[in-house]
């Protein structure tokens, strides 16, 4: 599913994405636009569940969009509870749907 706004009456036609970056979300490589936040990439590809809650396993995604509510947190490069609405994508970033409080994983760069 493509949710990109390719053409816009005020903002014009979207730039070519040839210099875009790729993020790996639950094992799937997704095209992202440089400078955008992780939540935007996920939404652009029609992914609606970012995490499942701890006790009831309920789905969640973006709510406030300014880093206040923490509803949109996911595990990013092995770090749980990263706010995807204020974290900018980086080429090769590994993003995982988070269950509950998440778990610390091994980062690719060995941090």
């Amino acid at each position, binding site marked *: 599913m493509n*949710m*990109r*706004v*390719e053409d*816009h*009456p*005020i*903002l014009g036609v*979207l730039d070519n994405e040839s210099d875009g970056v790729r993020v790996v979300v639950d094992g799937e490589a997704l095209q992202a*636009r440089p400078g*955008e*936040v992780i*939540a*935007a990439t996920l*939404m*652009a590809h029609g992914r*609606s*569940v*970012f995490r499942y809650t701890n006790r009831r396993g*309920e*789905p*969640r*995604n*973006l*709510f*406030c*969009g*300014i*880093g*206040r*509510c923490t*509803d949109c947190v996911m595990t990013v490069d092995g770090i749980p509870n990263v706010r995807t*609405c*204020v974290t*900018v994508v980086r080429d090769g970033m590994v993003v995982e749907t988070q269950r509950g409080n998440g778990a610390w994983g091994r980062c690719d760069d060995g941090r």
Partner: protein
Amino acid sequence: MTAVDIAVVGAGPAGLSAAIEGARSGASVLLLDENDKPGGQLFKQIHKFFGSREHRAGTRGIDIGTQLLSEARELSIDIWLNAEVCGVYDNNELAVVVNHSTSKTVRAGAIVLATGATENAVSFPGWTLPGVMSAGAAQTMVNIHRVLPGHRVLMIGSGNVGVIVSYQLLQAGADVAAIVEAAPSLGGYGVHTAKVRRAGVPFYTSHTVLKAEGADRVESAVIVELDKDWNHVPETEKTLAVDTICIAAGLTPLVELGRSAGCHVVFEPTLGGWIPAHDSYMETSVPAVFVAGDIAGVEEASTAMEEGRLAGIGAAAVLGYYGADERNALSQVVWNRLDALRSGPYGRKRREAKEVLLRAGENAT
């Protein structure tokens, strides 16, 4: 330890204006923002602003943002991005975390808090489902990131944010199924409301959302009529097929740093809730700590910019860059514009609430 004349927290319209005005006086200015880009919410305001020409009416928010940034650059204002201010301590010291990793201390002669506001939530069964979000989040997605949050949207709230974001969702290609408003009359400016109405979007006044339904995201919403006592009217439920519900139910000032600084706060519901009392130069009960923009009462970007100017002038004067006469003359020009922005039926209510804050501020200092 970094030492600076004026530290401004928040690089939105108020903070940028305060920084520019402060730097014009000759003071050194450090502007801090937790985001990776300056501008606050200005760069998603793709509509033309309202007011008179001196308020830059007829100019889109996005262009005003670009203009302010280039002024800030011309004045060599130091800007720290990805810089979260965590607390305001004695001696005007700010605790800052930069890039989520480095702690820094900034000591400032004067501080301007321009932290903005956060959107209010409305809770109803299903409100945690993916697809329910604040109107501002949807606006960021379409106008900044060029992503549609959904195909068919229900907007809760008919104030300016509700109608402006509805129109911008339409511009981006979404369908707006309805705008519901709990009050018996619409809340937004006529110019914005009329555009949405002309586009064929139905408005439901005296209505609220009863619930959202769906498995992994919103699939439908049920709305219901309200009587004059805000009770649900039986058998008036309507089910709307929507995949997105946006909430535009007002904003609450982000006053944490004001409280951290020890500012006297007062409750003023018309302007969003708890707000640091301040005088007409935007100085709070704590000497040399100023507020501007939504933290000083939720209004609009145009008023936020004027308040930012007042705070910048006030902060410069506290440090001796302006004498009292110069400060008063410069401030009066800004106050004349602010009074114009706070006129008319919508503005009057805000002005009256602001006067309560100002009285509390004059008594506290």
